[in-house]
C-alpha cells in the first residue's frame, strides 16, 4: 500500500473513493444523506491549500482511501477520513491517519479534532488506537481530540 500526500491529479481517484462508499458511510462522513458529490467540494479536497492537509492511499492503481485535516485555528485542525468500500479492514484507515498525523506535526499543529456519530464504531476503534479521547459528547455525536504535541498531552487537552 502506498500512502502519500494528495495532489490535484488525484481528483478522479478521490471521487472514486467517495462514490464507492455506502449510504451509511456517507452519512457518517457528512452527517446527512449524500448521493451526488459537488465537483467544487471534491476539487477543494485535492487542490493545494495551506489550510488543508490530505493523504491518499493506493494499492497499485486502485485508490483505497483518503484522509484530510482542515485548519480550524492557528493550532487545531478537523479530521475527515474515508475508506473505499472494498478496502475496509485492511489497515487503510490506520495508515492514512498515521501519515496525516506526521504531516500535521511537521506543520506545527497542536490538536486534531474529529466529530463522529456515536454509533460510528469503526471510527471509535481507529480513534482509540491512535490515542484520541472524547472531549465532548453532544447528543448523538462525539468530539474526539488528539494532542499532537507533548505540551497538549501534558495539559490533558
Amino acid at each position, binding site marked *: 500500500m502506498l500512502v502519500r500526500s494528495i495532489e490535484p491529479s488525484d481528483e478522479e481517484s478521490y471521487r472514486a473513493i467517495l462514490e464507492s462508499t455506502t449510504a451509511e458511510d456517507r452519512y457518517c462522513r457528512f452527517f446527512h444523506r449524500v448521493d451526488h458529490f459537488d465537483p467544487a467540494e471534491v476539487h477543494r479536497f485535492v487542490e493545494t491549500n495551506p489550510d488543508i492537509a490530505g493523504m491518499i492511499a493506493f494499492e497499485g492503481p486502485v485508490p483505497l482511501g483518503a484522509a484530510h485535516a482542515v485548519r480550524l485555528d492557528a493550532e487545531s485542525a478537523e479530521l475527515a477520513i474515508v475508506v473505499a468500500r472494498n478496502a475496509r479492514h485492511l489497515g487503510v484507515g490506520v495508515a492514512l491517519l498515521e501519515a496525516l498525523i506526521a504531516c500535521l506535526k511537521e506543520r506545527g499543529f497542536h490538536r486534531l479534532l474529529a466529530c463522529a456519530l456515536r454509533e460510528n464504531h469503526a471510527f471509535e476503534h481507529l480513534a482509540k488506537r491512535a490515542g484520541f479521547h472524547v472531549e465532548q459528547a453532544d447528543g448523538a455525536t*462525539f468530539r474526539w481530540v488528539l494532542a499532537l504535541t507533548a505540551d497538549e498531552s501534558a495539559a490533558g487537552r
Partner: protein
Amino acid sequence: MPEAPWIKSYPAPARWDAPLPLSPVYEILDTAAAQFGDRPAVEFMGKRATYRQLHALANRAAKGFQQLGVRPGVHVGLFLPNTPHYLVAFFGVLKAGGVVVNYSPLDAAQVLAHKVEDSETSILVTLDLPMLLPQMEPLVGHGPLRTLVVGGLADLARFPEFEGPHEDAKPDANGRVSFDALLANDGAYTPYPIGDPAETLAVLQYTGGTTGLPKGAMLTHGNLTAATSQYIETTKVDPPVLIPGEERTLLVLPLFHIYSLTAVMLLCVRLGAEMVIHIRFELEAVMKDLAEKKITVFMGVPTMFTALVSYPGLRELDLTSMKYTASGGAPLPLEVQQRFKEITGSELNEGWGMTETSPSGTFSPMRGMRKPGSCGIPVPGATLKFASVQEPNTYVPLGERGEICIKGPNVMKGYWKNPEATADAMTPDGFLRTGDVAYMDEDGFVFIVDRIKDMLLCGGFNVYPRNIEEAIYTHPSVAEVSVIGIPDEYRGQSPKAFIALKSGAAPFTIEEIKEFLKDKLGKHEMVQVIEFRDSLPKTPVGKILKTALYEEEAKRRASAAETATV
C-alpha cells in the same frame, strides 16, 4: 455507586424486592375471568362485555386461530385501532400458542411492508376501515402474509355474543376470513404449554432507530407479566387506592403501543377493571366520559393532559373520581402536572421507560417522597446503572450524568433476527443501554437530562430525524436536508426541516412536501415546518452542524418572545 439507593424511597407497603412471578400472559385474563367474571370488562360505543364474556371470546378466537394454523412459532399481526377486536385477538393469539406482532395504523406503507416481511407475519387481523384494510391487501400473497382476518365496526352489533352456527375458520380465495368466522366455534382450543415464560416470545413490538428500518423488540411472556406485576406493586399504598374489581379506566392510548398494551390493558385486566374504550383521542368525548363515567384510572401522554387541563368547560366537570393517573411517552411539563392536581385532587404520576423494557423503567411513588422534574425511582426488580457517555464501558458514580442502563425481568430478550443490534444495545454485564442520559440522586430518583440518540418525542411517539431526512431527500429538488426538533406546545416537539435546493430548483410549500411524503412517512413523524437555505451550516470538513441549527432556532424563538413582551 451505592447499592440500590432507591430502596429506601419505596413507600410501604410497595417493595422493590417484591416477588414478580413470571407466567403466560393469557393467564392474566383467565384469572380475571375466574375472579371477576360478572364484572364489566369492556365498554365500547354503548356495548358492554363482562370478563366472562371477554374470556369466552378470546377462547373462541384461539380456536379460530388454530383452525387457521396458528401454533407455537406462528406470528400473527394485529393492525387494529382501539376496539374490542384488539383484546379478543390479542389474548386469542397467545392462547393459540402464537406470537402477536403489533402494527401501527400511523405507519407509512414501506414500514408496514418491512414489518410484515421481517416479522414473518403469516396471518393478520384488521378492520375493513379505509385507513387499514387497503394498506394490507396488496401485501397478501407477496412474502409471508397469507391470511387476513377482517372485522368491522358492524361486528359490534353482535358483540359480545357473536352468536351463529359453528364452522371452521377458512380463508377464501383471496386469503380472507371474517372476524365472525374466527369466532364461529365452541372455544375448545388446544392449550399449548409455553415452557419457560422468561424465554418464550409473546409479542414482537417494533421500535424505530436512528438508522434503518424499525427493529422488532422480542418481549416474552415473562417480560409482560413481570411488567404488569411491577405496575401493580408501584400502585400499592396504605390504605389501598386501587381496589381489584372496582376500578374503571378510559382506554384511549393506542393499544399497538407498548405503553397502552401493558400499563393500561394488561394492568386493568389484572385489576378486573372496566375498560371504557375510545377509538381515538377526541377531547370533548374524553372529558365527557372521564366525568360522567366516573373514571378512576387514566393513563395518557403529556399532549392529552395538556389538552385536558386547558379544556374550556373544565370547571363544570367533576373529575375527582380519578384516583390513579399517569403520564408517559415524553417529559410532562411541571405546570401541567400542578394544574392537574389542582383540578382533580390527585397526583399525576410520571415514569420513564421504553419499548425494550415492556415499557416500565421508573415510576413516581404515589405516597411519600416526590421530586419535581424527576421521572421517579426504578420499578420493582429493576436495577439502574449509569454508563459514562465518553467511555461507555465504564459506569459513573452516583450523582454523575451517564447513559441509563437497565436490567430486570421486564427487559426484552433482544431484537428479532438482529443479534448485532442486540449486542450493540447491551453492556458487557448484561444491562440494556437506553440512549437516555440522566443522573440519580442519593434517594434513587432519576433526572433525565439529555439523549444520546438523534430522536424527537412528538405527541408521545419516538420520531427519528434521519428517517425524515431520508424521505425528504428523495424529492427531486432537494440537494441537502437536515431535520431538528422544535418546541411544540401541544406535541412537545415537532420536526422542522432545513432544506438547500438544487441549483435552479423552485421551492415548494409545506403542503406540497407533506403530499410528497405521505406514503414515505408515518403520520406521527410528518415534517411540520420547512425552511429553505442556500446551504446548511457545516464544519470545515463538511459535516452538517445540527447544533448550529438548534442554536439558531433557539435564538430566533427567544428574540420573538422578547419582541412579544416589550
